[in-house]
């Protein structure tokens, strides 16, 4: 049972960790200074949430692995994040579209995890949800502004949504780990988040005058450890310092 809990918390940690890494790539490259700061502030929050979860996972595992070892010294197939969060940022519109799709998921996940039987996990959820509301609000504002904006911004937002939407199917595909964690009162059944997520996302996309793509049978499998071709490049950069100087501390 403790392996289930460790794996489950690790899974939870990898999404904010990898998206935090992606968003931090915007540092110094934002379209305007204010948005450069906003994206990197969101990145910092996500990395902070990942640190809390990784430290907790390390305690559950009980083998002395800390947050740095878990964040930086695993092999690609051991990362359990959704494929969506590892995809390249693309333009600003694609970045905020992903922040909307993932941010709405994360909000409802934290909401449910506040009732976890694991009091530490519930506390992390209770803290993180407050931050996630601001992240989502930022993504909603920009999605509406750009989607219902100029011809150019609308076209870019629609292209971003067409590209990213199929990857959201993975959010709600149940696997054995989710089921075990949910049965234990520790986690959340993946499918239970789909309704609330759609209720949050669809009206925003409607207001942004964006068309939701038709469902496809495509399923990404990042959560199962089968990542896209982009993940290795991301990890090479993220892990460089710990691989080169093992045990390095700032």
């Amino acid at each position, binding site marked *: 049972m403790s392996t289930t809990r460790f794996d489950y918390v690790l899974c939870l940690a990898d999404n904010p960790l990898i998206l935090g890494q992606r968003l931090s790539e915007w540092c110094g490259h934002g379209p305007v200074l*204010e948005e450069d700061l906003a994206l990197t502030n969101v990145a*910092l929050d996500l990395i902070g949430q990942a640190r809390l979860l990784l430290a907790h996972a390390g305690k559950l595992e009980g083998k002395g692995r800390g947050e740095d070892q878990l964040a930086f010294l695993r092999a690609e197939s051991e990362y359990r994040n959704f494929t969506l969060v590892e995809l390249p940022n693309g333009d600003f519109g694609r970045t905020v579209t992903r922040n909307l799709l993932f941010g709405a998921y994360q909000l409802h996940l934290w909401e449910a995890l506040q009732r976890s039987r694991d*009091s530490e996990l*519930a*506390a992390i959820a209770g803290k993180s949800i407050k931050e996630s*509301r601001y992240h989502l*609000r930022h993504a909603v504002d920009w999605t509406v502004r750009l989607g219902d904006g100029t011809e150019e911004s609308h076209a870019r937002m629609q292209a971003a949504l067409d590209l990213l939407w199929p990857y959201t199917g993975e959010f709600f595909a149940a696997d054995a780990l989710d089921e075990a964690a949910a049965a234990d009162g520790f986690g959340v059944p993946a499918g239970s988040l789909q309704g609330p997520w759609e209720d949050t996302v669809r009206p925003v996309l409607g207001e942004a005058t964006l068309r939701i793509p038709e469902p496809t049978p495509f399923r990404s499998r990042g959560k199962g450890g089968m990542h896209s071709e982009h993940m290795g490049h991301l990890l090479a950069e993220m892990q460089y310092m710990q691989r080169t100087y093992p045990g390095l501390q700032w």
Partner: protein
Amino acid sequence: MVTEAQAWDALRAVPDPEIPVISVCELGIVREIRADANAVTVVVTPTYSGCPATEVIATSIRDALLQAGVEHVDIETRLSPPWTTDWIAPEAAERLRAYGIVPPSGVAPAGPRPLHFVPRLACPRCGSQQTERLSEFGSTACKATYRCLDCREPFEYFKPI
């Protein structure tokens, strides 16, 4: 031996590293202090998960207590209940404003359905109500960036959370 009251006094002089006009106690992050024979335990709650000041704050707290004569300092982190801007001391609000940061007002976004609502804030420098929000985030995650349309100065807003 240093008493709990003396330890609180020592920490009231520790400024927040990002906003030095308020102390870590006024910020509401020191939740509890326990003192015994030669050790003091300080329970601290982080503001934002990603706040880079958290580690500096822990070091400043430790240094202040060692300076006050405590032999051994333990710092514990407590996540629940999560930090809220409601814990910022009321007397610190005016100091924030004088420093150019509008103190938090209203309520934090509550529901999953975000509101398209931007609170109208008075400029902390000239008092004008003609201000606009430039960004939901600022130099730190806890603040939003605004601009005064009359005196043209930018200012920050400590967001309610």
